[in-house]
């Protein structure tokens, strides 16, 4: 290592000797004797190696970091060029609102559905009793109702929202896709069905939440404002609301935990899950694999825009 610094060191010593020669006043180019020269040289090289070592180390990390940043930027640029925005920001906010409210509602609701289990008793004590549980469940409910209001407004007033709603409507093709998928599962067909923007799986999920929302919010509001509800409806309407709320809650929870979690988390090509819910983007490969018809249309639209 030390030899690497040889030329640099010689230069530093030379400069210092010239400086030393200029110190004595009146004499422009005073000759230094050998003893002084030796002392100057000794002082000059002291700690110089350590100093140069530290500096070279710092410079090395600096250069490498700069290089990495550049590569990352390049990669991001390439990824962005190759990805497609599948879910816009409103879509993503709705999904976040939906899943956070559902998580709150399931955690706070299940102990009421199964009051005799020890886990329920534990959960209830963690929440701080049934009064707090009631408040937390209503917080979740407000968030869920907020989601439904947001979604309704998005479906009515946003162009993409209207387009998505139309695309989510069930069509004869969906039934064909189901049969195609079954054939594919058993090996009678080589190709998976070609999905458009929403596959029949996603359509099922959407309409399940639609149906569930009507049942859960409707029955939940009857129970929340039971005094108002019972001033209008007879008591058996309240009982029906309670039964429906309890049963639909279990159906929804099981569907999410088994079906949705399998499709987006636990199936071998997704495990342990993707960040699409956060950035809303799919790569070209994912688009071609999962939504080929939508991909074709997107490419066509791009070409139309350019042309």
């Amino acid at each position, binding site marked *: 290592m030390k030899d690497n610094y040889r030329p640099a060191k010689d230069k530093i010593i030379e400069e210092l000797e010239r400086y030393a020669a200029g110190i004595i006043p009146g004499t422009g180019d005073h000759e230094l004797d050998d003893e002084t020269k030796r002392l100057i040289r000794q002082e000059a090289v002291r700690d110089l190696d350590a100093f140069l070592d530290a500096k070279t180390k710092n410079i090395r990390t600096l250069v490498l970091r700069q290089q990495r940043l550049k590569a990352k930027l390049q990669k991001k640029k390439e990824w962005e060029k190759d990805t497609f925005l599948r879910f816009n920001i409103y879509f993503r906010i709705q999904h976040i609102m939906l899943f956070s409210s559902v998580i709150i509602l399931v955690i706070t609701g299940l*102990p*009421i559905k199964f*009051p*005799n289990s020890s886990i329920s*008793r534990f959960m*209830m004590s963690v929440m701080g*009793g*049934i*009064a707090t*549980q009631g408040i937390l469940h209503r917080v979740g409910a407000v968030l869920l109702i907020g989601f439904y209001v947001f979604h309704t407004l998005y479906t009515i007033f946003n162009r993409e929202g209207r387009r998505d709603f139309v695309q989510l409507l069930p069509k004869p093709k969906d039934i064909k896709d189901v049969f195609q998928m*079954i054939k*594919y*599962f*058993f*090996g009678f067909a080589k190709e998976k069905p070609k999905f458009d923007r929403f596959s029949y799986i996603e359509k099922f999920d959407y309409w399940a939440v639609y149906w569930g929302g009507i049942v859960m919010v409707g029955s939940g509001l009857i*129970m929340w404002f*039971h*005094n108002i509800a*019972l*001033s*209008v*409806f*007879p*008591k*058996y*309407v*309240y*009982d*029906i609301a*309670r*039964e*429906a709320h309890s*049963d*639909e809650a*279990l*159906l929804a929870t*099981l*569907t999410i935990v*088994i*079906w949705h979690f*399998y499709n987006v988390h636990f*199936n*071998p*090509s997704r495990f342990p899950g993707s960040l699409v819910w956060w950035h809303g983007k799919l790569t070209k490969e994912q688009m071609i694999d999962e939504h080929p018809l939508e991909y074709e249309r997107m490419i066509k639209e791009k070409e139309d825009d350019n042309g």
Partner: protein
Amino acid sequence: MKNNMTVSGHSSRPAKASAAVRIFIAAAAVSMLAVLMPMKAWSQPPLYQKCLLCHGRPGFKKILPDGKVLELFVNKAELEHSIHAKLHCTDCHADVMEIPHMKVPGTVNCYRCHYKDNPNGAKPANEFFQSVHGKLDEQGDPKAPRCQNCHGGHNVQKVDSPLSTVSHLNVAYTCGKCHKPQYDNYVQSIHGTALLDRHIKSAPTCTTCHGKHLILKPDSPDSTIYPLNVINVCSKCHENKELIRKYNIPGGRISTYKESYHGIADEFGSVRVANCSSCHRAHLILPESDPRSSINKANLAKTCGKCHKDANVNFTKGKIHVNYKSKSNGILYYIGMFFEILTISTLTLLFIHILLDLFRRFKSGETKGKNKRGE
């Protein structure tokens, strides 16, 4: 004896033997007498003759300075039939040192015998001290009852004796001497009429719900009638299948309550939520068919209105104790069935889809694809 004497000279041996027998019989008799002596003494009149010289005279009384009359007559027959018949007067009236006594004797203190660690009555005494009655007594409340106020003074009996003031049939009357409104309500209630009019021994009385000696205020968490504990008290009989069948009591009251939101909140420790007595009342409990009942259709809106403000006639349209799995509920049963079918069929189809998907992925080797790409 004479037989022995008539026998010839060889009779000495049997005569000796009979002497030994005689000695043995005499000794046995003496020892038997020794054993029986105390019993004989017990069966004799006890040592209260002296006291009864005055107190045994009917009409023996004292007129107090404030004009009140203090009855001092003691009924000898009552004393002789009490469980304490074998005791002397001064065993309880221990502050009477001489007869006739000069001072007015103080209140009898039962803990002289029924003290802690005495197996004959320690537990009730200790429980009494923790009870609401015992606490008030300790604070010096003159109205607070002590042992003798309920168990009786000279006529104290075993609890299973029909003469006892605290027997199952009599205890309500005894409690009612102080708790008059509660007693009046209880006597009219289904429980009161069953026990006092129809003499159904299984029907509850005061102590069945409130406890015997450890009676606590309803707001004490250890009380049997604390809001969270009421259901345990009622379920002792209303979940007892034998009693339900024998007396044709409506069943499933406890299980349906536990399924309701009231029951669930109660289970999780809410004291605000309605328990059995919130709707059925504590003492004036009457069947639905009785027009005085709090759960009669005509009164139900008012009863529910105690918590649910503006409760109206809609509360009566439908059952309160709803058994969600009973076909008699009509639409409710079919809605439950609809959701059951919907849940089972949906999840079965989804599960099949998942399994087929996995089957296909494993068969086409997709699960190993990542490793291949890594190589």
